[in-house]
């Protein structure tokens, strides 16, 4: 073999504490190394060109680059060597930046370590084999999980891009949190007016199949070829017949259960269409409160339904669909503010959440858009907003900032003044976080034009006095305690991961962070990708986000999906397990241990059981190779021989012999 070695300076990132020239000189003496040099930026265009030129000039058939982490640039250099006419698996990378120069200050010892890492890479490369990826067909369909604004945007963009979309939503209607909002910041435009048309588009788009009241049951397969089972919950109404006329809702005698769409501010009948703009506009029965489902008698809705679509015996239905890509847009839930006992834990009806307040502000809400406090229906004149309820608070395990509460609180303070001109709002805040376009100006307007009194400090307790609530807080700018008697207290509750996110993550092999938000592939450069190929993220399931950011991510995820599905075939990674049939005794241990179901037992022509790897399913994790008692499975590109060669390069065998004696 004729190997070329390239030692990257990475500006001063590596060359600052590693003698790159000395490393190149040492590498030149390694076996089968025909050429070794240092280079300023190996990844730059001239750097890559120099590698291509060197391959041609020195008739190289293998390349080692000693630079940064392979996570960053291994794909870059594989393309480079391929351009120079070498199989891309005749390339090895030594990480002398993250593993050497960034972690050690001693130049002499860094240089020694860099030389050793390069020696290991060369020894491995000497044993590499050319690998050719297989190609497989891509299913041209995408699954979008979650019908909030991020999922809606992703679904519409994918569908407009010509792909078939299956949209799955857990609730009865799409629309998510945004559908519950009255107005949006910083433009104060009507939330349902901007979201409504998009929801209608989803409902009418010929490329979109919508499943609501549905959840993901299971997911198998891999990028380009996922098999997804969807559980459509029994809704006890035949939606193919239901016209959404709403007669059943009017007649239903069971109407004591809290209305989830209105955040429990009012009640809803057991058979219900959640809100007038619901998509799909179909009725569903809540079996937990339905008298027929609970006690076996009633059936009033069935009697009066003009199209006879009530079906009390309906069962859950499982639907299976093949898709090539998945967009996760499961959003967020609200922090449970009852964890703060000092705010009354629900004993005081006029302490409400910010989302409940949105419903009070909304013309389609339970008060018809008139702000009336829950206890006695009076119009409040003094409204106190408390920010950071469940944000930036370690004591309730929510140390992160929820990001959008400062803005929606400013909006609510503005709307309060609009609704009740002789009202006064007080906003308790810790810091105002308003870094978006037009955002800071908006919070200033709340203070300057709408007269909201902003008080910098937390609220320690709320207690009733007469028909008011005394809010006791601090004004740390004045350095003292403040009290205000309020008619209504609105808690700016923070965002937390959606209920069930962790379970869904397990099904999708997408990792949640410690708070349940899904982890993106790279925080800057791969914000909507996950570490599972073909699964993308959009919106607040990745972390708290406002509407513009969620919509942006929905479109970004759609762009990724469209790029993926624009290919008819994908290449599978050839770094997969390979069975040596002569050694395999068919014990099946590998079949049991494989986490991806990528190994099956087949019979050879003599009828003996033998393990066989499904190359497109295998993820190359290597668990089977260490499980096999016969050593019959090897992971391509990471064979025992290749790894041992690296070990031997680091600890030459003679030393180990000395240990043995």
């Amino acid at each position, binding site marked *: 073999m004729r190997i070329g070695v390239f030692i990257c300076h990475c500006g001063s990132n590596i060359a600052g504490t590693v003698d790159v020239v000395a490393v190149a000189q040492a590498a030149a003496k390694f076996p089968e190394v025909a050429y070794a040099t240092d280079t300023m930026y190996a990844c730059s265009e001239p750097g890559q060109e120099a590698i291509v030129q060197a391959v041609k000039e020195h008739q190289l058939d293998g390349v080692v680059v000693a630079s940064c982490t392979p996570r960053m640039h291994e794909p870059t250099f594989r393309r480079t060597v391929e351009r120079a006419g070498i199989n891309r698996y005749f390339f090895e990378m030594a990480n002398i930046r993250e593993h050497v120069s960034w972690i050690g200050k001693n130049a002499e010892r860094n240089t020694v370590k860099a030389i050793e890492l390069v020696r290991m890479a060369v020894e491995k490369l000497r044993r590499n084999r050319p690998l050719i990826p297989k190609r497989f067909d891509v299913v041209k369909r995408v699954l979008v999980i979650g019908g909030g604004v991020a999922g809606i945007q992703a679904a519409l963009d994918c569908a407009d891009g010509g792909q078939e979309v299956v949209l799955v939503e857990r609730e009865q209607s799409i629309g998510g949190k945004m559908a519950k909002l009255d107005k949006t910041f910083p433009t104060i435009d009507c939330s349902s007016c901007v979201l409504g048309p998009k929801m209608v588009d989803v409902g009418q788009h010929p490329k979109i199949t919508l499943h609501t009241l549905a959840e993901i049951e299971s997911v198998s397969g891999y990028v380009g070829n996922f098999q997804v089972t969807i559980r459509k919950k029994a809704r006890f109404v035949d939606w193919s017949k239901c016209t959404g006329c709403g007669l059943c809702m009017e007649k239903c005698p069971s109407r004591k259960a809290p209305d989830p769409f209105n955040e429990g501010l009012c009640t809803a009948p057991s058979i219900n269409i959640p809100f007038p703009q619901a998509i799909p506009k179909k009725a569903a029965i809540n079996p937990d409160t339905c008298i027929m489902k609970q006690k076996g008698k009633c059936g009033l809705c069935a009697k009066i339904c003009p199209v006879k679509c009530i079906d009390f015996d309906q069962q859950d239905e499982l639907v299976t669909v093949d898709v090539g890509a998945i967009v996760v847009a499961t959003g967020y839930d609200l922090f449970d503010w009852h964890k703060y006992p000092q705010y009354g834990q629900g004993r005081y009806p006029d302490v409400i959440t910010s989302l409940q307040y949105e419903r009070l502000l909304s013309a389609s809400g339970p008060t018809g858009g008139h702000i009336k406090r829950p206890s006695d229906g009076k119009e409040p004149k003094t409204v106190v907003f408390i920010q950071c309820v469940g944000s930036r608070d370690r004591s309730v395990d929510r140390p992160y900032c929820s990001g959008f509460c400062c803005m929606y609180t400013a909006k609510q303070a503005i709307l309060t003044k609009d609704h009740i001109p002789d009202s006064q709002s007080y906003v308790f805040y810790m810091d105002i976080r308003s870094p978006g376009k037009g955002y800071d100006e908006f919070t200033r307007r709340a203070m300057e034009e709408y007269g909201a009194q902003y008080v910098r400090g937390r609220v320690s307790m709320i207690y009733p006095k007469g028909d008011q609530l005394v809010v006791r807080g601090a004004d740390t700018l004045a*350095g003292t305690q403040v009290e205000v008697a309020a008619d209504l207290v609105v808690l700016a509750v923070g965002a937390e991961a959606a209920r069930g996110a962790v379970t869904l993550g397990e099904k999708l092999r997408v990792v949640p962070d410690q708070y349940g938000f899904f982890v993106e592939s790279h925080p800057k450069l791969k914000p909507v990708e996950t570490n599972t190929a073909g699964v993308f993220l959009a919106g607040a399931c990745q972390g708290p986000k406002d509407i513009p950011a969620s919509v942006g991510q929905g479109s970004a995820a759609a762009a990724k999906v469209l790029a993926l599905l624009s290919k008819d075939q994908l290449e599978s990674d050839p770094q997969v397990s390979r069975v040596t049939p002569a050694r395999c005794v068919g014990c099946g241990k590998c079949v049991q241990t494989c986490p991806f179901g990528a190994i099956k037992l087949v019979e050879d022509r003599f009828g003996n059981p033998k393990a066989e790897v499904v190359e497109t399913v295998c993820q190359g994790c290597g668990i089977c190779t260490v499980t096999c008692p016969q050593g019959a499975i090897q992971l391509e590109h990471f064979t025992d021989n290749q790894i041992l060669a690296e070990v031997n390069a680091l600890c030459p065998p003679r030393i180990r012999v000395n240990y043995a004696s």
Partner: protein
Amino acid sequence: MRIVDLATADQDFIAEVEARSHQNLRTCYQCGNCTAGCPYTFVYDHSVSQVMRLIQLGQREVVLQCKSIWLCASCQSCTTRCPNRIDVAKVMDVCRHMAREQGYATEREVKLFTDAFLRSVERHGRAFELGLMADYVLHSGRVFTDVDLAPKALARRKLAFRPHAIVGRDQIERIFQRFRKGGAHV
């Protein structure tokens, strides 16, 4: 107003408060929740959150000479509601210990009452109310303290005329003696 020179922050002071209270004071982000809940803010010269900030800034003299540390009743409101789980009441306690050790007592009556109480315990093994009141009045010169309560209390036999002598009185005395031998003042 006093200008604080940030560069001359008394790092030893910060370290001592942290070590004696076992609290990490850097986690305080000045949300003000301690001040918000403190029932004593109305008599403080520096609110609790300001005391916390002044410690972060290493302002030894300001903290140890402030009245607030003497007027804190350790009611635990601050500690209970701190979002960063800082035992703020303990920090206030430690500041009071340090102030006392360094001879500060900006709320003289509070210190004298404390002293009188502990002298009573040292002498009798238990607190003897009538005796400690006499002691307090003697040291503070506030001869009319609570005299209005005496008839009520005496009529309802709420005050014993004689201390309850306990057998192990000398054991209590020795606790105080050993404590003083360790260099402390009571």
